[in-house]
């Protein structure tokens, strides 16, 4: 069982996300994370889904996803060289001077941006792979995380290769 990152190219139409998500839930496939948005083609969207499962399960996931009429292409990026990113916003307690300084230092090391400064809190924006964001969250926990939000993972193949409609 390891996480697989699937890149799913779909028609940009109402209800497509619910077709994909509904198929996952009724067939008992677990979605670890999901991100959806427009892509380079105006009439298509790209969904990045992270699923957990052994190879047989992931093969079924891909085949069943492919059967949906509005799904144009499904690729497993885990098998190939790809860049993967998530983005997180973290509101962390920073009431005292020393804490504030330490948080800013940590942010610097993680190349996180300070996107809001309040009297008692800082909001950091960090991008990276899952592990990096997990690590930052863990480090900031000692100061008190007030709120934490992260996007689903998005991913692209490295180099000139693309996940495109093959038809």
């Amino acid at each position: 069982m390891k996480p697989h990152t699937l890149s799913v190219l779909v028609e940009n139409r109402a209800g497509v996300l619910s077709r994909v998500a509904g198929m996952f839930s009724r067939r008992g496939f677990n979605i670890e994370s999901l991100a959806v948005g427009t892509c380079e083609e105006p009439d298509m969207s790209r969904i990045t889904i992270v699923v957990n499962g052994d190879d047989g399960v992931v093969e079924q996931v891909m085949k069943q996803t492919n059967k949906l009429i509005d799904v144009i292409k499904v690729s497993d990026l885990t098998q190939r060289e790809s860049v993967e990113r998530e983005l997180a916003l973290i509101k962390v307690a920073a009431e005292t001077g020393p804490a504030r300084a330490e948080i800013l230092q940590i942010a610097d090391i993680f190349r996180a941006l300070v996107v809001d400064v309040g009297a008692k809190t800082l909001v950091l924006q960090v991008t990276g792979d899952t592990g990096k964001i997990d690590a930052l969250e863990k480090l900031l926990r000692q100061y008190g995380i007030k709120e934490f939000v992260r996007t689903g993972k998005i991913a692209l193949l490295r180099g000139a290769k693309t996940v495109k409609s093959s038809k």
Partner: protein
Amino acid sequence: MKTGARTLIEALQREGVDTIFGYPGGVVLPIYDELYDSSIRHILVRHEQAAAHAADGYARASGRVGVCLATSGPGACNLVTGIATAYMDSIPVVALTGQVPTALLGNDAFQESDITGITMPVTKHNYLVKDAADIDRVVREAFYIARTGRPGPVLIDLPKDVTTSQVKAGTPVPETVSLRGYQPTYQGHVRQIDKALDLIARAERPLIYAGGGVVLSGASAELLEFMETAAIPVTTTLMGLGAVPGDHPLCLGMLGMHGTQSANYAVTECDVLIAVGVRFDDRVTGRIETFAPNAAIVHIDIDPAEIGKNKKVDVPIVGDVRAVLQALLRRMQKHGDTANWVSRINAWKAQYPLGYGDDGHLRPQYVVEQLSDILKGEGVIVSEVGQNQMWTALYYCFRKPRTWITSGGLGTMGYGLPAAIGAHYARPDMPVVDVAGDGSIQMNIQEFGTVAQYDIPVKVVILNNMYLGMVRQWQELFYDRRYSYTELPPVDFVKIANAYGIEGITVGEKDGVREAIEAALAADGPFVLDFRVEREENVFPMVPAGAAINEMIGVRQR
């Protein structure tokens, strides 16, 4: 200019629709107004579920797309069981539903239901049309999706303002359909085909396991040629009955939970299993680990998702069953010598014939055997679900594809009578018989009304044991005979039939069976036969749930 409703009717005619099964209501009034003087025949059912089953029965008997129509809300929801039935058995149906006007969508308006949302898991695809200008394209796509690839139901939801709004007449209709997300594979991969042929050439104990996909792709002639050329015995699933003649010397009948001993033993002992248009359903395989334990498996199916879903296969061939069988035949150079294997199977056949008690009592198997003997394959047999279905599958000899119509995957009680109505309109030249139980016939018995109104010559054979027989059988075998809510009070079905103006006969003795069936078939109109059969007769042989398929109970040995 023309209305959306008019556009819809013309689009349906372009798809060759001659019959629609439906039930009117508020938001489909514009469509019904167009149907009023249309050349399309509309059959008014008594419940929308029956409209969906009738469209499904029409599709199974004809091979064409069946069409049903219902209003929004409750009408659409009542179609759902029928749509799910068609989906599980891969039957091409287009379901048309009315919807509240687009301005009211999502407002909990009167008779609003989110039918595209509700049917998403049980349709191959569905549409909510929001612009009348899309009707032509959507109808064309829906029929294309329904009948191509692995067939299945497609639903089109039509808000009332879409069917009343005006569309520019003379707008060109797309000739062909091109969907970049839907490109079924029809031709099998040549290398895989040669791998399969290599296995077949070396096989000592090959077996074909054929299913509904053979019927759907119209591959009966190819399958017959293939099995005869290579001298390979064949067993069929419930859905595959009739794909090859049931009385063919190489045919072993049905396999699985209520399969024949010879079929189940053959699966267990074969060394190459050629699975054709099947999906390794749990009712076929029993305990999956022990299914075909010694065999290299070749799996031919048009749906890539079925391959490897339940059972790991050695040679996957994605493609249309007919096209793949043609390629196999074309490329086959040699095949193994199966004479020993065939004689071993023949010995099983002789040792373990199907059979039942012959103490003179009226048994359901006898009724089905007589029906089979009288019709000799020249009829369309529809069944309900339960014991009646299994007895028909075992004791009726199906000789041609599309002469056996039954709800396999979903196992929908109440399917038979409305499906028989649909089958009649698909094959008016053939006698249509619905074999029913007293439980399942009562699930859609209101359709006697439809049968009577249109004088549809459907013959209903009720195997009346005053039980929900299959459940009772499981309670007898696995729940210590605790018959919890499975006993039904006696019903005089002939009286019900008569109330609708349908003729009928009640038969309680073995002697009267043949005569009654002949009388029913000779009658011009519909006919109901109420056979009062042995109440606690069981369907045997049987593989208990979770057992291997060669571990059967209720085995008779000669």
